[in-house]
């Protein structure tokens, strides 16, 4: 395997400060990769690992490539995007049931009070229940951000589009359907694509986020799958790996929280893992963590676990002083931190 390991270094404040010379250098490096006829995905990953500058829609484009939505060859993009977006429009047309739409008169067996489980009306009510759950959760996505929760037309449209994308996903994946928390995974994608400075791309944020969400969830879907909870693939097994990794990385801390205080990882890491850390940090920080998560050479699950360990070790002194109740409160409401410290720690762990 070629050495793709990013070098161990901390991103300086200057590199992050928009307008600084170091920041501009990073922007140019991203552009030279993303504007090439064929994107060097390896180079893009290495660069993304230390964060994408918030500028010129770089993140929207980079994420679409890293999530496999856009192929490396630039010349194929227009055709592919047109095809995908029209396919998505067709899903919306075909999958959103409107029982009143049929031109034929209702059959004796197909009316709103029918007990027949194959009735269109029955399917409609089932959908309505799922739709209601999605709606409830989308309404509660980042309540502190105007983009998602505002009352103006733009925010209403954002919610409507997110609801539709999740609903279409659920309809196309009857084995999984919609699981609470998926809204939190769609949100960073939808936000990033919707705020793209490329307005044409921004208009198609819903369809693009939908396909990128499929790619993202394909790697993490087992976490959402109840039937796999007790298998070696499910969320419990992943939490078990987290415990093992903590034990290997910091035995004293493991002894304290897992053995002495009996703070079961189910009580905190369940959310960290299923939501890919989106509820633990302010939105821009979570987005920054996703840059690394989406480009990590060791794989996304591996990277996620390293970030979780880094989060634990980053507050180890406070945890070591706390009892069950204090530990749990701190882990469920992670204290404000500089995420760069966590990223740096996680990188150290991956190299050790």
């Amino acid at each position: 395997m070629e050495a793709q390991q990013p070098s161990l270094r901390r991103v300086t404040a200057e590199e992050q400060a928009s307008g600084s010379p170091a920041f501009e250098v990073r922007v140019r490096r991203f552009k030279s990769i993303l504007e090439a006829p064929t994107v060097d995905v390896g180079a893009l990953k290495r660069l993304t690992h230390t964060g994408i500058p918030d500028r010129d829609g770089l993140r929207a484009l980079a994420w679409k490539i890293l999530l496999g939505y856009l192929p490396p060859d630039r010349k194929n993009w227009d055709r592919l995007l047109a095809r995908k977006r029209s396919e998505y429009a067709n899903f919306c047309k075909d999958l959103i049931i409107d029982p009143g739409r049929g031109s034929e008169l209702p059959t004796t067996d197909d009316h709103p009070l029918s007990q027949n489980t194959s009735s269109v009306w029955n399917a409609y009510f089932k959908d309505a229940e799922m739709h209601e759950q999605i709606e409830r959760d989308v309404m509660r996505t980042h309540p502190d951000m105007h983009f998602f929760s505002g009352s103006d037309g733009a925010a209403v449209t954002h919610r409507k589009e997110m609801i539709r994308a999740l609903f279409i996903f659920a309809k196309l994946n009857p084995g999984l359907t919609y699981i609470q928390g998926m809204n939190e995974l769609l949100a960073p994608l939808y936000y990033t694509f919707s705020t793209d400075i490329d307005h044409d791309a921004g208009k198609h944020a819903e369809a693009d986020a939908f396909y990128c969400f499929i790619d993202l969830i394909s790697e993490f879907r087992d976490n959402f799958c109840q039937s796999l909870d007790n298998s070696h693939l499910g969320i419990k097994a992943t939490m078990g790996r987290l415990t093992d990794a903590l034990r290997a990385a910091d035995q004293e801390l493991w002894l304290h929280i897992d053995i002495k205080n009996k703070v079961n990882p189910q009580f905190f890491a369940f959310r960290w893992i299923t939501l890919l850390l989106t509820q633990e940090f302010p939105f821009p920080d979570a987005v920054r963590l996703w840059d690394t998560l989406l480009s990590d050479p060791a794989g996304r699950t591996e990277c996620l676990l390293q970030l979780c360990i880094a989060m634990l070790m980053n507050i180890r002194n406070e945890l070591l002083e706390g009892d069950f109740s204090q530990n749990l409160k701190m882990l469920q409401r992670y204290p404000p931190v500089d995420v760069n410290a966590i990223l740096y720690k996680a990188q150290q762990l991956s190299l050790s």
Partner: protein
Amino acid sequence: MKMSHKPDDDYDYLFKVVLIGDSGVGKSNLLSRFTRNEFCLESKSTIGVEFATRSIQVDGKTIKAQIWDTAGQERYRAITSAYYRGAVGALLVYDITKTVTFENVERWLKELRDHADSNIVIMLVGNKSDLRHLRSVQTDDAQSFCEKEGLSFIETSALESTNVELAFQRILTEIYHIVSKKVLGESDGNGPKPGEGTRINVVTENNEAAAKKSGCCG
């Protein structure tokens, strides 16, 4: 190292109470209203479990309530079953404006029967009583259901802060009376035997809440 003794840690009893019920009925807001006196019109959906504590006084005793809030959706029930371990009380919440959340109360009771201790104290809570014009579950219907099932009942509004304090106060008092009676009329040999002035945990010894109290060793 000796743990610093915080006022938060001075209590006579530690009771674990779980909040259950359908998604969107307001469980998290009941928790935040009671433990932090906060209410968010749109709070994030709960994934997995959330935890908070608050101490109250009952008959001159300090009772520390350890309250666990769980996700409402079906998928999370299997995962959350571990949270019932050691729970001595449950607030089963429905939304008075959504009949289906009241209809599902039976399913939640079954959930408790399957996973929780058979002596768990259950209180049915009809939340969102501020939405008077949208009410679809009548108080009388819920009341008679509770009489039939042997549950306590209260209607609350986490938004207006109506009866929230009272709901927790009542269930904790009820638990306290059961526990203190049990201690006085010591009949079964299995229960923890309290000496004078010792702290009583109704939670079992392999429980995380009990483990928490071993903080003064080492």
